[in-house]
């Protein structure tokens, strides 16, 4: 049972256990594969595609790819870096992401991964969608402009909180997050700031009220060290509040 099974991530040998995905094993070994919709506490999703890696000339998402003995996984080639950057740029133009005006700036995973991939501009044509802000809840505000459809809140509310507060509706480019309440607003739902779903958003879509800028810009999670070193924002939730 304890014979060391390994695969290769670029040049590094990574140990894994039965049932691990490439992402699981890499995270445990402290090797960084950029990701947004993945959080090890939840079932893998594979939708953002940012964790794309190359195995035998095929691109797969590391978060859903089962680890197999002897696998050779390419994570840091120039081609893959460019693909990740393009995916990030797509997420940026799809929504309305204005970093300088966002409370999450500096503790935002989208922003941090974008820096990591060397993204300097959004490159593609902006969609400028018209989206709402829902401030109806006493403790939490939702800014749909920043939602990247990672469905972490959907999974957390469904699988941990057992409330099913969030869900994705629509199709294609019209896909959007919806709230399970009679009026469709958060204030009307049984959502609570202590819910797991209130602490998993990788971007500035789900925001805690009354705590804005408690931690000044400049002292935030990704202000001093890159995401490849400090990891996901959700891991730090509750500890020092990003």
């Amino acid at each position: 049972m304890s014979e060391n099974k390994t695969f290769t991530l670029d040049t590094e040998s990574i140990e894994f256990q039965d049932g691990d995905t490439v992402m699981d094993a890499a995270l445990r070994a402290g090797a960084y594969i950029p990701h947004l919709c993945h959080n090890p506490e939840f079932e893998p999703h594979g939708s953002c595609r940012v964790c794309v890696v190359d195995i035998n000339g095929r691109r797969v998402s590391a978060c859903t790819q089962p680890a197999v003995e002897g696998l050779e996984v390419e994570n840091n080639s120039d081609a893959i870096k460019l693909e990740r950057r393009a995916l990030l740029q797509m997420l940026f133009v799809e929504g309305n992401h204005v970093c300088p005006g966002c409370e999450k700036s500096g503790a935002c995973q989208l922003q941090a991964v974008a820096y990591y991939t060397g993204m300097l501009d959004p490159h593609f044509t902006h969609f400028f969608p018209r989206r709402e802000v829902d401030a109806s809840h006493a403790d939490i505000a939702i800014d749909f402009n920043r939602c990247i459809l990672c469905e972490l809140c959907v999974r957390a509310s469904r699988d941990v909180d057992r409330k099913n507060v969030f869900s994705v509706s629509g199709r294609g480019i019209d896909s959007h997050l919806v709230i399970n309440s009679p009026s469709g607003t958060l204030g009307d739902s049984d959502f609570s700031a202590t819910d797991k779903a209130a602490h998993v958003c990788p971007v500035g879509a789900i925001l805690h009220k009354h705590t804005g800028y408690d931690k000044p810009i400049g002292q935030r999670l990704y202000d001093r060290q890159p995401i490849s070193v400090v990891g996901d924002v959700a891991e730090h939730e509750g500890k020092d509040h990003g």
Partner: protein
Amino acid sequence: MNSVEHVNDFIAELNAIVGDRPEQLLQYLYRIQYRYSFIPPQAVQLLAARLSVPVTRVQGVIEFYSFLHDTARGDFDILFSDSISDHMLGSRQLAHSLCERLGVRLGEPRGDGRVSVDLTSCTGMCDQGPALLVNGWTVTRLDEARIEAIAGLIETATPTDEWPVEFFAVEDNIQRRDLLLTSAISPGGALQTLMNKGSQRILEELDTSWLRGRGGAGFKTAAKWRFCRQAEAQQRYVVCNADEGEPGTFKDRVLLNSYADDVFEGMTLCAGVIGASQGYLYLRGEYRYLLDPLQTVLERRRRAGLLGRNIIGQDGFDFDIDIHMGAGAYICGEESSLIESLEGKRGIPRKRPPFPVTSGFRRQPTVVNNVETFMAAAEIAVHGADWFTAVGTGQSTGTKLLSISGDCARPGIYEYPFGVSIRQILQDCGGGDAQAVQVAGAAGSTVPQRDFDRRIDFDDISTGGSFMVFNQQRELLDMVQNFTRFFAHESCGFCTPCRVGGTLLKDLVDKVHSGHGTKYDLQQMREIGALMRDTSHCGLGSTAPNPVLDTLEKFPAIYQSRLRDSSYEPAFDLDAALQEARQISGRDQDTAHFETES
């Protein structure tokens, strides 16, 4: 009669037919849509309560499927098939004409609620188009006279069941028969063979026959059935994929119309081999007219002891088939999306592994095969592997049904042995003036004249059956634009590259098509296309850029001829962007416009 107050009674009525399982959600919604022309808010609440699902799940399903609406459509809801083959037959002009006659705008119900007119993805009538759906019923062979008559019937509020029956005629249109279409079996023939020979022998026969999936992917059928049979499980399921959504494909429509017994026989054979007691036919919503006839065939087979308990008198051979309706979502042709849809959910493709053969419907081992595959399996069981391998080529044994449409004298269904050349097909269907052929639909490839000696088989040009002919006068970029819009519309929205990239690509094709594109835009198209191809979650996303990537390589001139000389053009029209400001200020004179280049 359709008063919304009675929606509660109607749901109770449906309950007796479809039951209380959450997975029946889509089946409820499909029926409610056609009864009320939309899903009334009361119905959303009632269904959520009755099926014990969150209201957001109901809402999510309504917003996912094109045929479901949360606001009222017209009493007559008209959807023009918007396939490129319909365009080539003048569908857009006819849609425009109907809108004019009725005084209605495309996509918006008329003020009095009588009628709505809109466009929809290919309805599978390319050989007898242009076509439309009225309240889900197929109308074929549209022309000005028929449009005029339809406008009259709508103005007089004549119910569709009193419309002339010839409007709804769908012909099989079989132009060439080969192995499959000349060897229909007598009901129960394959099942009797199964009883005589046993499952192992049937699997060996299928193995030797080299039957491969007819949906296009070409996975060996015997292997699929064997994996499913070997998987540990409480239940196994047989699913027939009749979500024939690839633009230009219409063979399954014909098989289900005239060879349904062979298809159901194949499904029952599969059930006997793998040990399943329940099967589903997933029928695309566009084929609503086939539902009743298919139910009749199923009922006849039950009475004949070919479905139900103790099939053909064999103790413990229990199997039945239900028909599930799709509701306008191309993605549900992908087998794991189809399973999600069968479970009453949005059709989002699942992660793989696990594959459906080990974890499919209700997370149990499931065989999903194409209509044509089940039919071939049944015939192979009766006639033997040698009969099948006698035609075809190499590892592409047997025949393939092609759905031929576009610029040819004789569109319709053609059955050919694998290995037939494009040139031969064009000669037979009267497509002598072709500049190109689109094989395998929007996700397929555009074959230029110089490649007409290439062949249809799994090793050369593989296809689920779509074959569209484009003559010398056609603008191929119209086709590219049609396909790119189709994919942007049909993306499920799950993964980033397809959801965002698909729309970016569509906008760029539109830009080039309208004469505003530059070399830079073509480079963008290549890069976005490659990203979609390589990093998408499923086959739809990875094949969605095919029409662009393929024609950029093979037909660069269709793009070059429309490019601007400059190296860069903004993505938006500066003057058009000021329109709102002009409206607000009420100033629309020349000086309120940018100078336009002549």
